[in-house]
């Protein structure tokens, strides 16, 4: 099994700032915008971006929640391992709001498909955007594309992209792992 570094901490930092900047460009004061981190790994990314929005752009009153998609997945009883749920925390209504989904790796698009269904339980959003840190652009099973994109990666199906965050994994780094 080999692994190589795709992005180091400095590169990740630059990308995070660019993504935050792009969000501000489109959403200005975030009055009608809600940020949703997709459980489990999208939450770390979402919290990083929110920190930048708060500290560098002074956007303080931000609606932020996390969404677990386990019960909406299309592979129930299909995988070898049973699915384990995470916490959903959305204590506001998304009706008529602009929703931004944040997830670390966009791969087949199936998680985002599930998230699109799941978010409807909280109302009818005005629009939904997707921010992904890594876009594995040739591996999609569904017609889903990101609106904000950290880095495009061309990886084959046998390879795995792993995004580590220092809060959870001790370091900021993106690995490409081959079996």
């Amino acid at each position: 099994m080999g692994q190589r570094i795709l992005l180091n901490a400095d590169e990740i930092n630059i990308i995070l700032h660019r993504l935050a900047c792009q969000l501000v460009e489109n959403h200005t004061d975030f009055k009608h915008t809600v940020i949703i981190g997709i459980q489990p790994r999208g939450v770390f990314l979402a919290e990083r971006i929110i920190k930048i929005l708060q500290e560098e752009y002074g956007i303080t009153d931000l609606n932020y929640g996390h969404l677990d998609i386990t019960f909406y997945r299309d592979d129930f009883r299909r995988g070898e391992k049973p699915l384990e749920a995470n916490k959903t925390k959305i204590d506001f209504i998304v009706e008529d709001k602009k929703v931004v989904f944040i997830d670390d790796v966009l791969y087949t698009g199936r998680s985002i498909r599930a998230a699109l269904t799941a978010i409807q339980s909280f109302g009818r959003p005005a629009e939904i955007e997707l921010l992904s840190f890594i876009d594995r652009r040739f591996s999609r099973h569904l017609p889903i594309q990101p609106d904000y994109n950290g880095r495009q990666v061309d990886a084959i199906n046998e390879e795995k992209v792993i995004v580590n965050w220092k809060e959870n994994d001790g370091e900021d780094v993106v690995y490409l792992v081959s079996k």
Partner: protein
Amino acid sequence: MSELSVNHLLGIKYLNEKDIELIFKTADHFKEVINRPIKKVPSLRDITIANLFFENSTRTRLSFELAEKRLSADVVNFSAASSSVKKGETLIDTVNNILSMKVDMVVMRHPNPGAGIFLSRHVNASIVNAGDGAHEHPTQALLDSYSIRERLGEVRGKKVVIVGDILHSRVALSNIFALKLQGAEVKVCGPKTLIPKHIESLGVGVETNLKKAIEWCDVANMLRVQNERMDISYFPSTREYAQQFQLNKSLLESLDKEIVVMHPGPINRGVEITSQVADAENAIILDQVQNGVAVRMAVIYLLASKINR
């Protein structure tokens, strides 16, 4: 650990502590789901569940049906009163006929103890026991423990007294198993005639004085006197029973602490519990009902994830 150790929920006796933990953790997620504006998830859209009720039930049946529907399962209902059981069909035949219509899971209430276990050995479906005679009522015990955990933080180390008709109660037996498994201390309290012999062998204490029992406990689970299961007289009169074993306001006010009051329903107001106590803030009777849906969703979800495709 994200899988149950069993393929059926026949009784608490067959579960381990990890199973209960997993059910509660999953129920936490479903409790959040049923408080959303849209209270439904599509997880079980390819699962069909038959609710077979060979004995009357309102709460349990509604609760199971809601749980199944909120998981998007297809549901068929069956009650013995309006069926071929009356014409002499056997239990296995009835169930096999229903299963041949491609049903994946059976939720069954039956007046005979062990009916669920019997069925699980003879038919090819996941079985959930929704009460079998005076034997077990596992989902009730799970939701009772879940409600204690929700109110008091944890079940371990808590003192729980179960008051009333222990002899005929499946709720009592399942609760004893569930509470002991989670490390609670348990006592039963009631007229001697309604406490089974050798119940101490399950590791529970026996108390015949309600006041002493209430002074000892953190949680009192008040059971209904099951007149329909009593073939002989176990106590002289309902009035005398109420005098000795009724939980009322003056008894609660005589304590120097607040205890949690539970009741599995249906309540006989004025017999085992007064209206004042049943409707008070420290009575979690309606929380139990709400938690029942979440806990049953968790049980069904976890069992369904083990059904082979």
